[in-house]
C-alpha cells in the first residue's frame, strides 16, 4: 500500500506525482533527496527502503530518475518496490524510453496510467498489453468511446476475446543465460543457468496450450523412461497465465497464452557449468611506465556450435593511455569510460583458441592510492545459437482451440552470457600479488 507515488529527477524535484491516500502530504517528496544525501555524507548506505519521522520512503532508480513511494503504514515493501519496477516497464513500453523528456511530453497519459494501475494505494492492472487496449495515446481519435476490456477483470485477465489471425503460429525461444564466477586459480566458484522460455503467440480465439519439456521430475512421476537426457530444474517460475496448481499436481504446463510476446516461464539450474568461453590474461605491470596484457580466449564447447558476437572486457587501470593492440582475430578497442578494453570476435568456433596482446602507457606520477588497484574481473558477452547448456528440450506444444485450427509451433534455442559472467583470471606476472602467510 502506497500513499503517494512520484517520479523525481536526480535533483530530487518531482516531475510527476499522484496521491492515492491523504495521510502523507506531497511536501514529503522534497525531503527525499536531502535525506539520501545526508545518509551518504554520514557514510551510511542508502537502502531502497528507509523510515524518517514516521514516513517510509521506498524507492528505485531507473536511468537518471528516482521512482519514489511514500507510506505511513507497515506496508508490503516487496509489493511496492515491484510495483515501481512494473510502472517503469509499462511506461517504457508506452514511450520506448523513460526519461525526464518523455515524462514531460506525456504527463496526461502518465496520469491516466497511474490512475488505472493503482487505486487507494493498491496495485491494480499492470499488464501493459491490456492497458494499451483502453488507455491509448490517440484516444481522442476514436469515434466510439473505449470500454474496459473484459480482460481487466476476467479470470483470464491477460487475454482479450475475439483475436483473429489468418495464419496461426507460435514461436518459442528457449534462452539460457549462464552466470558464472571463476577465481584466480581457474576454478569455477559459482555457476548457474537462468533459463527462460519466451513466446510469440499469434493464435486466434482462446487457445488452450500444453507445453511438454524433458523435465526429469515429470518423467519420474509418470514412470516413463526418457529417451535421451532429462533435466532437473531447480526452481521454475511461471507467467500468471499458467495454472500453478496443475503444475504442482502432475507437472503439466497448461495455459491460455496472452496475445503477442511474453515470457512464459523461467527456470534455474545450479548444476556446475564449465565456462563455455574461457578467457585468461597475463598482465605485466611496470609501475609508472607501461602495462601489457596477453589475453587468451578458448571456446570450450562442441565444434559444431559457434559463439556469435563475443565481447571480452578486460579491465585496465583508470589512467592508462596510448593503447596498442594486436589480435589474431577480431577487433580490439579501448573503452576509457569503462576502464577496460574490449576484444570483439564476430564468430568463435567451438574448440578454437585465439590470442591477443595489448599495450598501454601509464603516467609516471601516481596518486597516493597507488596500492588500490581495482580488481575488477574480466567479463564476457556471447551468444551460442541452436544450443542449450542444460540440454532442455521442448518435446511438444499442443494447441487446442474450439474452432479446431492447426497451428505450427517453431522452436529456437540459444545460450548466452548472463548478467554476471566474470572471470578473475587477469593475473599479474612476477609482482607479488599478495604476501604469503607467515
Amino acid at each position, binding site marked *: 500500500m502506497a500513499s503517494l507515488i512520484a517520479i523525481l529527477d536526480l535533483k530530487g524535484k518531482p*516531475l510527476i506525482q499522484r496521491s*492515492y491516500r491523504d*495521510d*502523507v502530504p506531497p511536501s514529503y517528496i522534497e525531503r527525499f533527496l536531502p535525506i539520501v544525501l545526508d545518509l551518504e555524507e554520514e557514510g551510511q*548506505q*542508502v537502502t*531502497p*527502503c528507509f*523510515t524518517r519521522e*514516521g514516513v*517510509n520512503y521506498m524507492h*528505485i532508480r531507473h536511468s537518471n530518475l528516482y521512482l519514489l513511494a511514500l507510506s*505511513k*503504514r*507497515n*506496508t*508490503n*515493501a*516487496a*509489493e511496492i518496490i515491484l*510495483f515501481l*519496477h512494473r510502472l517503469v516497464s509499462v511506461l517504457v513500453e508506452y514511450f520506448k524510453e523513460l526519461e525526464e523528456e518523455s515524462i514531460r511530453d506525456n504527463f*496526461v497519459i502518465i*496520469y491516466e496510467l497511474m*490512475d488505472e494501475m493503482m*487505486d*487507494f494505494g*493498491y496495485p491494480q492492472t*499492470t499488464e501493459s498489453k491490456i492497458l494499451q487496449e483502453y488507455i491509448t495515446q490517440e484516444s*481522442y481519435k476514436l469515434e466510439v*468511446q*473505449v*470500454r*474496459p476490456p473484459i480482460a481487466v*477483470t476476467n479470470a483470464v*485477465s491477460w487475454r482479450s476475446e475475439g483475436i483473429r489471425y489468418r495464419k496461426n503460429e507460435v514461436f518459442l525461444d528457449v534462452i539460457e543465460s549462464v552466470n558464472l*564466477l571463476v*577465481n584466480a586459480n581457474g576454478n569455477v*566458484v*559459482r555457476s548457474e543457468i*537462468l533459463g527462460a522460455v519466451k513466446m510469440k503467440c499469434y493464435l486466434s480465439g482462446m487457445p488452450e496450450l500444453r507445453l511438454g519439456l524433458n523435465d526429469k521430475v515429470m518423467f519420474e512421476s509418470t514412470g516413463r523412461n526418457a529417451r535421451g537426457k532429462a533435466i532437473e530444474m*531447480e*526452481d521454475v*517460475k*511461471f507467467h*500468471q497465465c499458467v495454472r*500453478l*496448481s496443475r*503444475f*504442482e499436481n502432475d507437472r503439466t504446463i497448461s495455459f491460455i497464452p496472452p496475445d503477442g510476446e511474453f515470457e512464459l516461464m*523461467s527456470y534455474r539450474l*545450479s548444476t556446475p557449468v564449465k565456462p563455455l568461453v574461457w578467457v585468461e590474461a597475463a598482465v605485466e605491470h611496470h609501475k609508472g611506465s607501461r602495462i601489457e596484457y596477453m589475453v587468451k580466449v578458448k571456446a570450450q564447447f562442441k565444434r559444431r556450435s559457434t559463439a556469435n558476437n563475443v565481447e571480452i572486457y578486460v579491465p585496465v587501470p583508470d589512467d592508462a593511455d596510448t593503447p596498442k593492440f594486436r589480435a589474431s582475430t577480431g577487433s580490439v578497442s579501448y573503452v576509457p569510460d569503462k576502464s577496460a578494453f574490449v576484444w570483439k570476435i564476430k564468430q568463435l568456433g567451438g574448440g578454437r583458441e585465439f590470442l591477443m596482446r595489448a599495450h598501454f602507457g601509464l603516467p609516471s606520477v601516481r596518486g597516493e592510492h597507488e*596500492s588500490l588497484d581495482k*580488481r575488477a574481473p574480466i567479463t564476457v558477452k556471447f551468444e551460442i545459437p541452436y544450443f542449450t547448456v542444460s540440454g532442455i528440450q521442448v518435446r511438444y506444444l499442443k494447441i487446442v482451440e474450439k474452432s479446431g485450427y492447426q497451428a505450427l509451433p517453431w522452436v529456437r534455442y540459444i545460450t548466452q552470457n548472463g548478467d*554476471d559472467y*566474470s572471470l578473475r583470471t587477469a593475473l599479474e606476472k612476477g609482482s607479488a600479488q*599478495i*604476501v604469503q*602467510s*607467515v
Partner: protein
Amino acid sequence: MSSFRAPPRKGENFELAADLNSEYKDKRKDAIKRVIANMTVQKDVSGLFPDVLKNMQTDDLEQKKLVYLYLMNYAKTQPELVILAVNTFVKDTDDPNPLVRALAIRTMGCLRAEKIIDYLCDPLQKCLKDDNPYVRKTAALCVAKLYDLKPELVIENGFLEQLRDMIADSNPMVVANTVAALTDIHAAAVAAGVPRDQFPISTDIVNKLLVALNECSEWGRVAILNVLARYTAEDAGESEHICERVVPQFQHANASVVLSAIKVVMIHMRDISSENLSKTLIRKMAPPLVTLLSNPPEVQWVALRNINLLLQKRPDLLSNELRVFFCKYNDPLYVKVEKLDIMVRLASENNVDPLLSELKEYAQEVDVDFVRRSIKAIGQTAIKIDEAAERCVNVLLELIGTRVSYVVQEAVVVMKDIFRKYPSTYEGVIPTLCANLDELDEPEAKASLIWIIGEYAKKIDNADELLGIFVDTFTEESYPVQLQTLTAVVKLYLQKPESSQGLVQKVLNTATKDCDSPDVRDRAYIYWRLLSTDPGAAKAVVLAVRPPITLPRTTVSAVLLEELLGEIPLLASVYHKPAETFVGRGRIGADTVQQKKAELADDRIATQKALQTVAAGQQAENLLDFDDDVQGDGQPSGLAATTILAQTPAAANLLAGTSSNPLDDLVSIFGGANLNSTPAAPAPANGLGGFGFGASPLAPAAPSITPTALSPQPPQQPAQGGQDDLLGLF
C-alpha cells in the same frame, strides 16, 4: 506540446480561463491540458476551479479524466464549489459505459471533501451491485476510502456487510479488491482502537479465498495471501490444508507473491505437528528463495533482509546454497552488505574454504566500507567455526601483509576478537601485529592492539617498550585508547612487576593528574587503590578469566522473530523492527497509540521489552568491537552512580538481586553490549556490576568499597556471565 511549458506570460490564468470558456471544443480541451501541465509543475491553478468544472460534462473520456484529476487535486481547497460537481458525478455513475461509471465512483472517493461524502453513499450502493465486475472492483475499494473519511457512514449504510458478502463474488478480481478493502478497514479500525473485529475470518471465507487465489491477478494474490496469514486455523488439519494450497504460489513469477506465500506457510506451519510435512515445506521454500536473487537489486535487497530473518528461525533452510550469495562485482553496496551477513550465517565446516577465499577477494576491492565488512566477516567466521579459526587467521595475516592501512587496522580489531575466543592459541601472530604498530591511527584498532599486548604481556618480551610508546603520548590519545592503555599497563605490572614498576607509576600519575576524562581518572584511582592495598585482589579482578564470546545466532529476540516472520515482506520484516517503532502517528495511527497505552498496559510492557531487545540486538551486531564496551564504562551512570549507590544497602540489594531483573537475560544474551536505551533505574545496576565488581559478588552489607571485602571471595562466574564480559577491558 511545447506550449505547455512556455514561461508564464502575464495573466496566464486569465487567458486560460478565457480558453476554458471558449465555444470551440478543441480549444477548451487544450486549455484543460495546459491547466494540468501547470498543476504538474506545481503552479497554482486553483483559481480556475469554476472554469474547469464547466468542462466536466463531456463525452470525451480523456477530457473527463483530466477534469477529474484537477478536481482531486483542488477539491480540498475549494470545498464550497465541489458541490457543483456532484450532479455530474452522480449522473456518470449511471453512464452506460462501465469505464465512466468506475471512473466516477473512483474519483468521488478520492475527493476527500466533507460536503460531497453524503452524496457518495447512494451511487456507491448502486455500484457495489453493478453488473460489470470492473465497476464492482472499483466500488469495493471505494468503501475503504469512505471508511477512511467517515467510518460512521460505512457502518450506517451497511457497506461492511455488503463487502463481506462480496467475498463470494464470482469474479476473482472483485474478491481480491474486496479483501484488500476489508483488510484496509480492519487496519484502520485497529489503529483507531475500535474493539470489534471489522473483518472476522471464518473457515468459510478461507475456503473461498483459496479458490480465488489460483485465479486472480498477481496483486490480488498478495491481498488474499495477507488475509490467509491473519487467519488462525481451527486445527492442524486445516493448517496443513492451507499450506498445501498455498505452496504452488512459490512458483509465481512475482516476488511479492512468493514472499507472501512463504509468510503464510511459515505462520501455519507452527500448528503442524507432522515433522515430515514441515521438512517438506521447508525444502520447497529454498529454491524460490534463491531465485528471488535474480530480481532487480532493490527487490533482491528486500528478499535478502527477509531471508536473513528466515535463517534465524531455520538455520538449515539454505545450508547448501552458500555460493548463490557470493557478491557480484556490480552489486550495489546495500546488497553486498546483506549478502555478507547471510554468508556468515550459512558458514559451516563444509563450505568454509570457498567462503574464505571469496571473503579474501572482497577484502581487496576498492570500496573501503565493503572491505572492512568483509574482514569483519572473516573474524566472525573464525569465531563461529572452531575448526576454521586457523585458516581464518592465516587469511587475516595475508591481508595484513598487504599493508593497506584500513585493511591492517580492521584486521587487528578482528584479531582481538579471535584472541578473546581462542585464548593463548595464536600467540605466534602477535609479533606480526606489533610490527604494524606505527600504521595504526584509528582509536579502535589502537585500543585492540593495546588490549592484546596487555593480555599477553607475559609472553611479549618488549611489552613494556611497546606500551611505553602509548604511555608517552597518553594525553594525546582518545579516551578509549587511554582506558585500554591504563588497563594494559596494570596487567603488565601484575604479571611482570619487576620491569614495569616505573611505567605503571607513570601512567597512573598521568591518568589521575593530567587527564580530563573523569572515567579515565576514576579508573586510574581504582587501580591505584587496588594495587596499593592488596595486589592479590587486584590480580583477581584485573586478570580474572573471561567467558568466551560467541556469535549471536539471532539479532532479535525469539518473540520478536516470530512476530517479524509473520510480517514478511512488510516493512517491519525489512527493517527487522516491530511496526510500532516506525509507523507514523498520522491520521490512522494517531491517537490510538495513546489509547492503547492506557488500555493495554501489558502489551505496552511487552512492546517496550521488544524495543529494548531491538536496541540490544543492534548493539549485539557490534558485539565484536569492544569499543562499545569501553563506551559502556564511559557512561557517567556507571561509575558516578557507583559510589553513591553502593553505600546504601538498598542499592546493594538491588545489585545482588539483579537476576530477578528481566533485563538480566538480555545482558547475558548480548554479552557486554551497552544498553543505552534501558530505563534509568536498572542502568546503574548494570554499570556497577559491569564495572569490575562483577567478578566478585558485592556483599550486600558492604558499606564502602574496600579490598578486604572483595578479596576473600573467589571469582564468581556463572550467573553474571554477561556482566563479566565487560571485564575484558581490565
